[in-house]
């Protein structure tokens, strides 16, 4: 029984750890538009958008009944407004998204500023295109990104201080 329990719990943990390899989870809606028979919604994260790794997710639905279109082919192209020759292209896939209604493209935005974003997609042999602008802020500094990693020991130290004080209080005053 014990080994079965261990196997069960290990399997659950393994499932939990391996269930989704991607981090893309939609984010903030930047565009909702109807094109032909389809309603397209584009999400970006993080919010607010910053230079560095970002996620652009697209949801394509049937405009009539709201049903999602499964596995559309989507290409996201980003062009810097400052340097138009700087282009980033990525394929948005269902696998990369956490929410499997969406197709996500994970791109590394090299610099802050305004970026022109084109979303090209193909549904049932018909090509569509969307354009919109995104404004990315300065990249989060490393220090800001890792502050929880070097501040948590303060909590442990406070707890330890309380612990030792309590221990000393209970000691007989013979020392």
């Amino acid at each position, binding site marked *: 029984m014990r080994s079965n329990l261990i196997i069960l719990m290990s399997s659950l943990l393994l499932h939990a750890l391996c*269930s989704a390899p*991607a981090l893309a989870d*939609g984010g903030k809606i930047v565009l909702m538009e109807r094109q032909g028979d389809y309603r397209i919604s584009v999400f970006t994260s993080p919010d607010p958008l910053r230079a560095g790794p970002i996620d652009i997710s697209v949801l394509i639905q049937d405009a009539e009944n*709201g049903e999602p279109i*499964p596995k559309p082919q989507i290409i996201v192209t980003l062009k810097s407004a400052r340097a138009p020759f700087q282009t980033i292209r990525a394929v948005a896939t269902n696998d990369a998204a956490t929410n499997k209604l969406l197709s996500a493209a994970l791109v590394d935005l090299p610099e802050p500023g305004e970026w022109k974003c084109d979303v090209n997609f193909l549904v049932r042999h018909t090509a569509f295109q969307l354009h919109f602008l995104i404004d990315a802020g300065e990249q989060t500094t490393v220090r800001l990104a890792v502050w929880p990693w070097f501040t948590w020991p303060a909590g442990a130290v406070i707890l*330890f201080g309380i612990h*030792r004080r309590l221990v000393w209080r209970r000691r007989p005053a013979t*020392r």
Partner: protein
Amino acid sequence: MSPTLQAALRSWPLAPWLAVSVFITAAVYLLGWRSLCRRDPVRWHVGRPAAFLGGLAAIYLALASPIEPFAALLLQVHMLQHLLLMMVAPPLLWLGWPLLPMLRGLPAPVRTYWVAPLLRWRVLRKTFAVLTHPFVAWPLYVATTWLWHTPAGYELGLNQSGWHVVEHLCFVATALLFWFPVVRPHPSRPTWPRALLFPYLLLADAQNTLLAAWLCFSPSVLYPYYSNVPRLDGLSALDDQTAAGVLMWVPGSVAFLLPLFWISVSYLFDSTSAAKTHRAKRRRVASLPQLPIIGARQITSKAQAFDLLRVPFIGRFLRWRFSRPFLQTLMALLAAIVIFDGLTGPQISPLNLAGVLPWIHWRGLLILSLLVGGNFFCMACPFTLPRTLARRWLPGGRPWPQWLRSKWLAVGLISLFLWSYEAFSLWSSPWITAWIAIGYFVAAFLVDSFFTGAAFCKYVCPIGQFNFVNSLVSPLEVKVREPGVCSTCTTMECIRGGATAPGCGLELFQPRKHGNLDCTFCLDCVHVCPHQNVGILATVPGNTLSRDPIRSGIGRFTQRPDLAALVLVLVFGAFANAAGMTEPVLQWQDQLGMLVGNPSRLSVTTAYYFFAIVLLPVFAVSVAGCLSRYWGKLTDDSWAIAIRYSFALIPIGFGMWLAHYGFHLFGSCDAIIPATQRFAEDHGWNLLGVPSLQCACCQKPSDWIPHFEILMLDFGLLLSLYTGFRISEANAAHFSQGTKAFAPWALLICLLFACGVWIVLQPMEMRGTLPPPLN
């Protein structure tokens, strides 16, 4: 099945931290419950773990199942998430009576030493008692529910992920407080009448109904966020809101009315004979002696401690008499390849095995092995292999000179190595690297040819000293299994030697050995002990640093200024060595050079190292020692205090070495591939393919590497602070005296930690790898 549902069933977010936390909590609970169930199966029936695990599962489902991603698109799913967090998980967790199983499931030292004093803390107990009183818990729960369901509160949570986490924390915390008086988990003793729960739950249901009705009957969408998200399957935002209201109303009411019903039934049948029998049965069990949950520390036999020598395969291999020569031969082969390639191969470090293997892989693996095991590199040391093989023909026999019987020579050699590493860029010269390895073989051979024992290891070898000091923080230690067996031993083979192996060459007598200092893990004592009473046992990392007994072959720490100097050079050297490859420090060195009239690079490096590993440590520990003596009103000499506390710095230094070498290992571990391919190709073996030099190029380190580095520094910081505090406690008459004596050392440790964090956040040179390709 609709495509939306199909997608929902596949949408499982990645939540490793939550998964690991839930798993550990469940494991600790089950361990404790099993032990309690054996004693009292009536009280600790299987329903308890079922409820507790159900509560954990509810939390996991709410936060790491398709509910989480879909909560952003549908209000009803979001409401379901909140119901799980507020009305399902908390009562189930309390129904599992978690306090005793969680305590019992913890390791005994953690439970008795760490947790017990905190649980006995009167302030904590009083605060909890106040917070779980119905007159406090009810308003807190209701206020939290209403506050976060106002349009402003809800929108805040929806639009900002940080606030969403705060919202969930508020829900779980207040719900746990709310459900505590209802469940009254054992062993709590409520001071309020049970009848109070009738208005308590009825009023909670009433406010829930009111809120649900507001959602159901509102003519407009209350939360504008949901008007602006794509609608799924033709469901309008208003319909979604109504559905959310119904969900809150019906299952919400059930959650409040069900316990009410249960309490009514228990009131009615409380005086029946069945209940009396049940209570009598419980009383019989309760009359048994109490379990040592948080009482006095349990004495565990050392024989029960984890012993690496008893692990299948690994233990058998290590007990094999020729395991050490086998490992040494492997390492000697690698050393031969390094020497050969270093002398004959291309003098470009990333292309040469002498530039890659020692400076990226060997250093990194060595420090990691010290972290997870012990001094296994000294066990496999190739440099002592030739003298071991040739020992019977060597003159030997002379004792190591008395005036050199200290660590001062090693202190000088380590300082020399650290300085020359930077001054002559050792990492970038395969030729010098090869000659260092040759020098090592020759020195070990010569020293041990003339002198008895393992004089080279104990007094000369800089790598050995590095391993000895840092292995004081390792979790494994070569030590006796049962001290009682040694007290009856008269032959003492572990120090004198026997027919199968010599005695300890480093003069460590096992029964009086404390910690890993000076232990090469040669396992001669293991092989020679006729009682098989020596093992590689688990120990609490750094535990031996805070105590100062007489150690065999070493003496007391307080009487060894040479050892303290060794520690300080290694600790400050860790920071100086890592800082020496950061951009700002290199720029400061240049600026300093220009300021004093452009001296050579060698002079600047010399000045830098003289300051960093000589002047700075002497100044820092002198000041800290004086302040410690003055503030703590200690009677000892300032130098004696400084020497004693220096050992508390070992963990933070070890953390810095780990961060530094780990950075190189994890950031450039693939550099070995092209170097090996190049080596094979040069010698006519094309089986490994053409070297792909991009592989070794300076690449952006993975995002997790800075996290790893800081985590290592965190553990170093905490262990150093803990060790320092324990040292101060040992010499203090009361808490405040100990704290005052420790304060300057705590400041020094924190300053070192701050330096370490600053270093790992700087742009660094990826040494041992090729520069980035030109675009």
